[in-house]
């Protein structure tokens, strides 16, 4: 019986650094480890002793792709700690900011990180000569999403306007209307994107795990809601720590999470669509039906299609929110109070948790952060345990590539979880 060893030294086109080691002997997996070796940065350590109004700017630097998520989650957790309820305008502007970042990140993953896999290229730049129109379309859509982030946030990367209890400066209706035109013009492109993604062949693979995300019966939510799952979890955000357990593992700098009494779970666009399909816009549902996509789906490779689907919804939703608001400066004074607060949001890659304890001067005494990829690492390993035996006959190189593609489908972000993947598959 042949032995195989899959060794992916670094998994490319993902954010951050990781290695996959798989050892196969007599057609059985004898060892499988997803090692995240992105160096630890100790946010939970150095945030202690810092002041409440610095935290949002600092935690944005956890991740270059989802600064808005870290900022919003931290701000909401700190507001919960100081019992501050932001205005309706602030909540709407935060939605615009968060939706724009999910759109931007989904488009980035679909075209710049995942599409080269499905089309057989090593990078999006390598696709330019043969797929120029597609690349142009991708860049155009991404620019519109970034433009919206910039108008509301002041800067597309690491926004500067969000603060506790509001915004340092609110965008003018005029600027919002200008980006609204661009959003409307891009709607057909979002529908075409789903068509392209749905037409790409994905590996036949299924593993039914638990899909976890937040849900708000009124809106396909990103910022606020109860934590729900396809297996009946339904809890308040402050109950998170009682249900999700985080464990440190010896071979990786990322921790692993499981649901108490059950096991691994998946977060991200697929989990959102599996739980909240009913809340998507009619246009998005129509597009899903046209492309024969029926949710729930238990194939992690379908995560990319779920991303394309939510981009259709979010594009429409952003234009609606812009119509609903005419932002005016508001009083954003913060009354500092001691307390403890928690918040859950949907980062582009899935569930994100922040929790803080403040003293009466507003100085952080304790900080806890659990990122989407930390939530997903165990599920990735479990998928690999199931998938590899099903494709055992493939030569080592192809086997390793499909493992790498599976991990990339999750759209992981390993600098968040501590950060590129390489798969090492060895058959002895």
């Amino acid at each position, binding site marked *: 019986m042949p032995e195989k060893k899959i060794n992916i030294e*670094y998994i*490319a*086109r993902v*954010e*951050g*650094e990781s290695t996959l080691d798989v050892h196969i002997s007599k057609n059985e997996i004898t060892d499988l480890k997803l090692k995240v070796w992105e*160096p*630890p*940065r*100790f*946010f*939970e*350590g*150095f945030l*202690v*002793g*810092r*002041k409440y109004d*610095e935290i949002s*700017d*600092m935690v944005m*630097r*956890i*991740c*270059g*792709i989802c*600064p808005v998520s870290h900022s919003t989650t931290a701000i909401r957790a700190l507001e919960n700690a100081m019992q501050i309820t932001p205005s309706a305008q602030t909540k709407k502007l935060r939605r615009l900011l968060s939706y724009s970042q999910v759109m931007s990140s989904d488009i*980035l993953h679909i075209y*710049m990180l995942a599409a*080269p896999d499905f089309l057989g290229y*090593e*990078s999006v*730049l*390598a696709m*330019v*000569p043969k797929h*120029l129109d597609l*690349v*142009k379309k991708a*860049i155009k859509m*991404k*620019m519109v999403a*970034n433009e919206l982030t910039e108008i509301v946030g*002041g*800067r*597309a*990367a*690491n926004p*500067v*306007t969000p*603060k506790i209890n509001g915004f*340092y400066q609110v965008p003018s209706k005029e600027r919002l209307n200008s980006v609204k035109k661009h959003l409307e013009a891009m709607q057909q492109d979002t529908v075409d994107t789903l068509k392209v993604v749905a037409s790409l062949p994905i590996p036949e693979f299924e593993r039914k795990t638990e899909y976890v995300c937040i849900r708000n019966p009124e809106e396909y939510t990103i910022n606020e809601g109860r934590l729900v799952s396809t297996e009946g979890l339904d809890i308040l955000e402050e109950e998170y720590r009682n249900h999700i357990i985080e464990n*440190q593992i*010896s*071979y990786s*700098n990322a921790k692993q999470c499981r649901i108490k009494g059950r096991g691994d779970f998946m977060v991200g666009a697929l989990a959102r669509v599996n739980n909240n399909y009913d809340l998507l816009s009619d246009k998005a549902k129509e597009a899903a039906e046209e492309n024969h996509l029926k949710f729930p789906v238990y194939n992690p490779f379908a995560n990319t299609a779920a991303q394309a689907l939510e981009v259709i919804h979010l594009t429409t939703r952003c234009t609606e929110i812009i119509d609903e608001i005419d932002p005016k400066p508001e009083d954003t004074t913060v009354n500092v109070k001691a307390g403890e607060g928690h918040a859950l949001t949907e980062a582009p890659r899935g569930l994100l948790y922040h929790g803080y304890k403040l003293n009466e001067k507003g100085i952080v005494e304790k*900080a806890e952060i659990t990122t989407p990829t930390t939530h997903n690492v165990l599920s990735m390993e479990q998928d690999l345990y199931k998938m590899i035996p099903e494709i055992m006959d493939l030569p080592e190189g192809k086997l390793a590539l499909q493992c790498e593609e599976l991990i990339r489908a999750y759209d992981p972000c390993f*600098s968040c979880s501590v*950060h*590129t993947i390489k798969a090492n598959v060895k058959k002895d």
Partner: protein
Amino acid sequence: MGRNQGYTRNSGLEVIEMAEKKKLGIFKLTSCAGCQMRLLYYQHRELEALTAYDITYFKMGKRDNLENIKVDVALIEGCVTNSEQIDELKRIRENSTILATLGGCATRSSLWGLKNNKPEKEIEEKAYKDLSTIHSIKAIPVNDVVKVDYLLPGCPVGEDEMTEFLQSALVGRRPFIKPHSVCVECKMKGNLCILVAKKEPCMGPVTAAGCGALCPTNGRPCYNCRGPMIAANAPALAKEFKKNGLSDEEIYLKFTAFSGLSKVYEEVTDRA
């Protein structure tokens, strides 16, 4: 690829053909990947400048990456926080003609430098229960380990400054890196000075320019994300803050947030 192949200039997708392209490697140490991420926006002139290079190494952007080959330009994102990275950095230096830092982490260790202000174990224990498998040293900026040709500040490095660097390295001229403070850009925008008029604790006077005075333009004081400008007068600004009612502790926090291992503010931040 043929010359230009009909790509239009306004889309930013112009493929520049040259006899032999210069090789560009983009490497990552400890960082948030935000500067690399910003490169993946592929916008406008920046994309044009990027396609003028043969990118041999960019793990976040491509699958085929060439290790240990000579490159004309190396961009380093992130700072050193473990010993393997020191070796890696030395290898990259040996293999590159021009080496530049990409952003604040590489330039001065930025936020990660906060770990240096407290005992290592105290910080590490708060993030991990079992420290036996965690290998981390203090956060060291790139120019403390190897010779650096150009320091590009920014959190992240903006499009204009990135394009300026890529174009200048391409033709072999010295890039223009703004030597002045954020105040100069703020004045050029015609903003009302929030430090003087509103007594808000703005770090603009001691912060390296390049963002276009982003924060004051968006109604808030600069929080020093780009780090110190060279020859900043930190004590003078600290005095002004004190006059405006900030406590010593609040002043310390302002000057330490993003300055990392830089010595420019040490008269204010040195507590020994």
